[in-house]
């Protein structure tokens, strides 16, 4: 019995060692990212490609939460990098470095059963600030009844971009229901014929009706040519200048052809 117990103890010990030692040997660095839901699809694709191109060097952990959550996380040192979908604001914590990686554009969207073609800035402002509450007061709309405003929670970068670029810096009314992610906003607009909201282009061009702005249609062509005003940048944000694995990742995004191809698939490359 004594021998069996000694043997079991020895086996367990070596088993644990056998598991632990390889873990110590392979020390891949981990990049944690949190932030914008608008750029999460892009960053996920880029991360997957990067891991294929340079295996065993980096592991990614990508969370979302909204651009402002990402900024708070990276400022607190909770994550390595933040995905941010808006330009830096004066209220941002100091010491953060913003690295642009791609361009995207914001569209006003309605349900496909309500094919609103165009809104002027004044109309958009009136609707989103809650002055106009009924579809009968919106020319070109085929919906009836109360306008259901769908917006984003205050952690969203796309919200800031939308307010800056398309609403002339007016704020969205507090009546609007606040969705925590682009996906949920898109889903709400898809399921409610009286809904109106705003989405980044990756989500706006699928299954909902993108509304033109000041006579210019919301499309990739108009965004690239510069006619459409709602174009903004995706950034990767680090606390202090990027170092080590994150620096390598950001420069790969900026310079490699594979990354450019991924960006060009649904977004707009920087150059």
């Amino acid at each position, binding site marked *: 019995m004594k021998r069996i*117990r*000694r043997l079991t*103890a020895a086996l367990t010990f070596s088993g644990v060692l056998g598991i632990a030692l390889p873990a110590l040997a392979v020390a891949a660095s981990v990049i944690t990212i*949190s932030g914008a839901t608008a750029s999460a699809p892009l960053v996920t694709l880029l991360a997957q490609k990067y891991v294929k191109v340079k295996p065993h060097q980096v592991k990614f952990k990508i*969370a*979302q*939460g*909204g651009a*402002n*959550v990402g*900024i*708070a*996380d990276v*400022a*607190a040192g*909770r994550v390595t990098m933040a995905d941010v979908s808006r330009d830096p*604001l004066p*209220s*941002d*914590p*100091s010491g953060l470095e913003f690295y642009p990686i791609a361009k995207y554009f914001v569209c006003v969207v309605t349900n496909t059963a309500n094919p609103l073609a165009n809104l002027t800035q004044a109309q958009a402002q009136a609707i989103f600030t*809650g002055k106009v*509450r*009924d579809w009968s007061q919106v020319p070109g709309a085929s919906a009836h*009844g*109360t*306008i*259901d*405003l769908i917006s984003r*929670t*205050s*952690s969203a970068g796309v919200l800031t971009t939308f307010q800056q670029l398309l609403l002339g810096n007016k704020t969205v009314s*507090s*009546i*609007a*229901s*606040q969705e*925590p992610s682009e996906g949920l906003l898109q889903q709400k607009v898809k399921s*409610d014929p009286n809904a109106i909201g705003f989405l980044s282009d990756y989500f706006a061009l699928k299954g909902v009706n993108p509304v033109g702005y000041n006579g210019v249609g919301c499309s990739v062509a108009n965004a690239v040519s510069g006619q459409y005003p709602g174009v903004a940048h995706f950034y990767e944000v680090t606390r202090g200048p990027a170092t080590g694995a994150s620096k390598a990742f950001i420069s790969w995004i900026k310079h490699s052809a594979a990354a450019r191809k991924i960006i060009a698939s649904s977004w707009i490359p920087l150059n």
Partner: protein
Amino acid sequence: MLERLRHPWSDRRAELVLGAAAASVCLVIGLMIAFVAVRAWPTFAHNGLSWLGPGGNTEHQIGKMLYTGPHPPASAYHLSAWPLIYGTLLTSGLALVFGMTFALLAAIFLVEFAPLTVRRVLVPVVRLLAGVPSVIYGLVGILVLAPFVGNHVISPAQKRSVEYVVQLDGTGLIVAVVILTLMITPIMVALIADALSTVPTAWREGAVALGVNPLRATLAVSLRAIRPAIVAAGAFACARAVGEAVMIAMVSGGNAFTPKPWDGVVFLFEPLLTLAASILNNADALSAPAVGSTMNAFALLLLFSAFVLSLGSYLVKLPLRRYHAGLR
């Protein structure tokens, strides 16, 4: 070393080891209360008692906190939690009232009137309903009840009547209260039925012998006798309702709005938010110090309310100790 462990332990050593295990539970609980209180302190310090008062949409105030950096100024902590407190009180209170009525009737049915076959079905049913995870209740609520209320119960005229203040889409007070009642009733049914069955049959039979019909005998004798258990069941169910986060986050509309009873029927459809649901919604923003402090303050409030409920039920039971039956 292994040799020594193999020998039978002395009583002293066993007592110490077992006592350490028991004390570790104490330690963890104490640590939890301390952690939450310490982290919640900044928001109370900066707001004072006005933290509990009304004054604006709480979710917006939390949203603004995200813009402050790692060392937010005192003004960043500004918050008025009343809409959330009101939402919690409203949903839990209504659910408790409806649930308690329902549970009393069902418990009396279970113990007195149910034929054996029905009783054999009802006991597992109660156990099942009590054990269903809250996320499943929330799923059914958000995929079935909320769209039903939004599309078939709320009329466009009602939506228009509040369109300048809030948007109605089916998620809101009534769906939350209905599902919350459903969640807390089985627990109360089980506790009350348990207590009813421990009342000495002689007491009831005495009443029946005096000519009272069985229902009145139950109401007059058994229910009075188990009042402490009813209070305990109510307190337990209330604590459960107050702490429910996931289901409420899914069906309550997520808007820190205070439903106004004087809106009439529309009151039932207005969205709201509770303390626990707010913690769940803001869980990924915890790294912003102001948000983290606020969430811990909510958690402290929840802990405090659970504590108050159990203390209150203990105090209420004290004068009822004359009746020996059904004491927990």
